[in-house]
């Protein structure tokens, strides 16, 4: 009986691995194909039937793409936008979550409901008036214009508030008796205790901002301020012929974030599980 069970388990395990292999192939092969192609010469890219591995690995595709398309400048813009928007979101969301979980004051529940209501306003629906405001504030065609409005998302408040509710008030009371001020309780006690929830909000915010396309497209039209996405998007519409450079740029844009996430995925999923994201 036990033996049969073990054999059965082995069988299912094999099937699981096989299915996953097919699944990850579907996810991974397109990317792999692009990576391989990005090292081929233009002539080899346009050859039929195609080669799988490059005949000769051409690294100049990369060096020339970087030189010709000011890749580093776009990368820097993307990183700057992603990090500063995430930082703002983290601070204002955790402050609000702190107030909503640890303070009693009139109107608290109304404010909470209002925040829930904002989730019903899809961001793309209000893009026009937000853009008009940004333009009026002189932030059109500035990185600040990409950073500020999306940073005001309340999504993180719900995750953080939920998490803060599980932290006992005793520690806060003890700190109060020791004479700690409101802000230092928030900064020195609450935030360190919320690290798992803060990590989840950070990851999602980074993913959203890094992958955000339409908003930067609307706000920015000066080439100098392009994010990586906008720079890549320039190749749409044109009949692309320099696929060797384009593919090299594409690969370069994938690498930084994949490197970050590959190392983090385990903690990320545990973090989401522990914060009970789905409410």
């Amino acid at each position, binding site marked *: 009986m036990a033996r049969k069970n073990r054999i059965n388990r082995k069988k299912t395990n094999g099937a699981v691995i096989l299915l996953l292999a097919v699944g990850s192939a579907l996810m991974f092969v397109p990317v792999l194909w692009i990576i391989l192609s990005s090292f081929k010469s233009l002539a080899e890219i346009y050859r*039929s039937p195609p080669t799988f591995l490059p005949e000769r690995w051409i690294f100049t595709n990369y060096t020339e793409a970087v030189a010709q398309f000011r890749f580093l400048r776009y990368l820097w813009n993307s990183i700057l936008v992603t990090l500063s928007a995430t930082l703002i979101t983290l601070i204002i969301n955790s402050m609000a979550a702190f107030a909503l979980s640890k303070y009693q004051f009139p109107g608290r529940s109304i404010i909470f409901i209002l925040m829930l209501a904002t989730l019903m306003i899809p961001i793309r*629906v209000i893009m026009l008036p937000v853009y008009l405001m940004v333009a009026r504030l002189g932030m059109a065609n500035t990185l600040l214009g990409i950073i500020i409005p999306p940073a005001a998302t309340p999504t993180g408040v719900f995750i953080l508030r939920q998490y803060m509710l599980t932290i006992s008030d005793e520690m806060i009371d003890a700190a109060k008796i020791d004479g700690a001020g409101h802000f230092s309780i928030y900064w020195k006690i609450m935030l360190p205790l919320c690290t798992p929830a803060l990590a989840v909000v950070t990851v999602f915010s980074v993913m959203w901002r890094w992958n955000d396309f339409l908003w930067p497209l609307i706000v920015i039209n000066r080439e100098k301020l392009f994010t990586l996405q906008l720079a890549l998007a320039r190749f749409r519409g044109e009949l692309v012929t320099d696929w060797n450079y384009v593919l090299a740029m594409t690969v370069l844009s994938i690498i930084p974030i994949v490197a970050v*996430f590959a190392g983090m995925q385990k903690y990320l999923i545990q973090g989401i599980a522990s914060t009970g994201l*789905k409410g």
Partner: protein
Amino acid sequence: MINQKTTAMGQKETMAGFLFLLPLLIGLSIFYFYAFFQNIFISFTDMSSFGKPAYIGLENYKRLLTDPKFWRSLKTTFKYVAVSVPAVMVLGTLVAFFLQKARKWSSFFRTAMFLPAVTMPAAIGLLWRWLYNYEFGLINIIFSQLDIARIAWLSEPALVVYSISIVLIWSMVSTQMIILLAGLQNIPTMYYEAAEIDGASPFQSFFKITLPLLSPTLFFVTIISVINIFQIFDFIFLMIQPTALAMRYAMSLVYYFYDRAFIVFDKGYAASLSMVLFVIILLITIIQFVFQKKWVHYN
């Protein structure tokens, strides 16, 4: 506890709590609430890039009714949702379920599955444009090896919605799988052990244990997927040329809105388009909340 404190103390508490809320409240009031009402207001005007906008009542909404481009983009948007949401849900759940089961190489599989989620849309768009390339794309190369006729993935009017949906599904399965995987981790293993002792097949335990206990997460993911896919724009913009014939068949509501608002500056009319999108998303979300009682189990 708090009631027993002196009023002066209570006032200070209130002040502090309110100050912590203030930055987010300011942001939300400006960029969500004010913007939302502003949008309604703009939809009743003839705002464009020149001159002062004048109030024109329901004119924009009347124009919608007789605008074939609007109706076509609306229909196309529903097509994207109808094709992509079920596919994302089913594939996302299956992938997460198997990833959870895998004992060997699990971090390799996770990273591979995770790849599309962290790749920016512009890169995904270019990547798939190359895969879909008529002459040199990988898919058509495989097809021709198998003696199947090459397909013009991104220019065939009848196909273009599906070609874009495939890209959308490819990228969204990966994103939603993360949340589903976290949901699966919250299912206590004792349920599975008990089921195994009772002789349940893996198939049975998937349908009788996994799905019901995962249903709150599934509900959450469905809501998010529907809202996101209704706002589809990126891959259409990135993969189809604006002047191509295929664009007529690929254009979504948000693309049409973008075109009106930011290319031809017909802002009043664009605002009315976005209000239609808002109402549709709101109604469909409400319907989903009503029907969740039928299938979502909270324990």
